């Protein structure tokens, strides 16, 4: 009862007190459950037209179909998923393997910054998705075209944040480590990289998000396999249940990949409190 009054009161109290995690969990769970119930009722009573949005049963049936029966959009859900993840990882690693060192270098060396920044400034404002038509003209509907688009999606944030990461390291720390006579290489591996790491991971997170969005867009424009292909086919067939299945698959992929990155992040910075 107390929790209820506490919730319903205009709760400026919410600003000062610590969050009550249990109430949050209960209310959150109830909301989701309520929404699912509302969805069920609205679709069985016809409040939502089945042509616009599937009923829960249709959704489950569509999910079953694409998971176990081969054939929808030329593959099982697992094949589509595997294909998409493969391309995401390819694009992500190809871009960040270049972007992060480049950003670090630009942060470290004024000369490198002056030389590269103008080129980077030309590329930076172009949204990743705007590379898709060019990629298709140059590389067709192949995986290579998608990797190219994802490369740009992941490249820009990884450069920017690695650069900012180096620039945000306290100068005295760098100067002190130089004075201690540590070698140039050691300054980079022991001072620059760890100092920039939080910012680098911010960049990697954005890169990953960018890859996911770019991949879905690129696959919607044309693909042999992939989650975007599922969405595309479902859209063409006007098959709302399958559209929803595709969206859920995209969201789960994003969720799992982000969670993996989180794990890597906390493992690589054990000195940081979470």
């Amino acid at each position: 009862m107390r929790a209820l009054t506490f919730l319903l009161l205009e709760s400026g109290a919410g600003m000062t007190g610590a969050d009550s995690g249990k109430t949050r969990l209960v209310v959150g769970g109830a909301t989701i459950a309520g929404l699912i119930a509302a969805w069920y009722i609205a679709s069985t009573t016809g409040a939502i037209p089945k042509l616009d949005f599937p009923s829960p049963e249709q959704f489950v049936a569509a999910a079953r179909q694409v998971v176990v029966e081969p054939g929808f959009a030329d593959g099982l859900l697992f094949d589509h998923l595997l294909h998409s993840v493969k391309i995401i990882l390819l694009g992500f690693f190809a871009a960040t393997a270049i972007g992060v060192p480049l950003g670090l270098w630009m942060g470290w060396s004024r000369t490198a910054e002056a030389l590269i920044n103008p080129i980077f400034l030309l590329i930076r404002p172009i949204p990743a998705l705007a590379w898709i038509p060019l990629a298709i003209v140059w590389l067709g509907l192949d995986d290579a075209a998608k990797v190219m688009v994802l490369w740009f999606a992941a490249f820009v944030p990884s450069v920017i944040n690695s650069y900012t990461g180096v620039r945000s390291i306290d100068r005295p720390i760098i100067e002190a480590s130089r004075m201690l006579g540590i070698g140039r290489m050691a300054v980079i591996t022991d001072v620059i990289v760890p100092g920039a790491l939080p910012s680098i991971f911010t960049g990697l997170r954005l890169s990953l998000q960018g890859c996911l969005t770019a991949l879905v867009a690129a696959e919607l424009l044309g693909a042999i396999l992939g989650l975007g292909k599922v969405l595309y086919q479902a859209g063409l067939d006007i098959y709302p249940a399958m559209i929803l299945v595709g969206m859920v698959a995209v969201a789960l992929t994003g969720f799992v990949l982000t969670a993996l990155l989180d794990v890597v992040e906390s493992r690589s910075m054990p000195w940081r409190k979470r």
Partner: protein
Amino acid sequence: MGPALPTRQLVLLSAVGLAIFFGIWTGAAWLELAPRRFLPMPWDVIDRAFKLTETRFSGQTLQGHLVISVERYLRGFILAVLVGVPLGLLMGWYRWLDYIVTPVFDALRFVAPIAWVPFAALWFGTGIGGPTMIIFAGAFPPCLINAYRGARYVETRYIEAAQTLGASGLRVVREVLLPASLPSIIAGLRISAGAGWQSLIGAELIAANAGVGLMMVRGQAALDTSIVMVGMIAVGLIGLLIDVALRGAETWIKAKQGH
């Protein structure tokens, strides 16, 4: 990291950087590493841009496509701001709203905005409604998140002062949380503007009856790289313009509040 470079050296190095970029481009085109329609010279692109402003391509001139895109964009973006910012602020104040909206928002957050395209086309068509919805899907989350965070991190003393002065909840939201979190909100708008603009291009590439995205796809279908590149440059410039405008607003507000 050394000291800042002298201006002359900076300009020189920047010029060298640009020269390398355009040198490689022109050189590759000159050597005909790819047919010229796949890899045009830089001046071919400029030439094409001028031609596109005079003759129609896919139903519109370049500026015609741009006007359509910007109009759609403004619709979706403004809608996202008008819904996202107030909702975020209210969630920062009313706990029950926070508890109800956050799980739903978290569940939807991982759906890439572009993945809404099939539903958007199904529900709202490919004219104005569908693309607007995609822009909304891209621009909404940063608006909400930054308004919410801004509201949660407002210094307690301002809220307490307002409460002891008898302000109602809605008044606290309007007159304390909103102005106090403006810097955070504007930062959110900058992210949101970029995300919305990118989503618009995506939507227009995939399903739209006009707009600069459509122009690019048609250029791609015609295997005419210079049209695609004109589109990329136009899209980049407008995105830049939007960001510069919002950055100006940010500076102005910070100056006004005496930060």
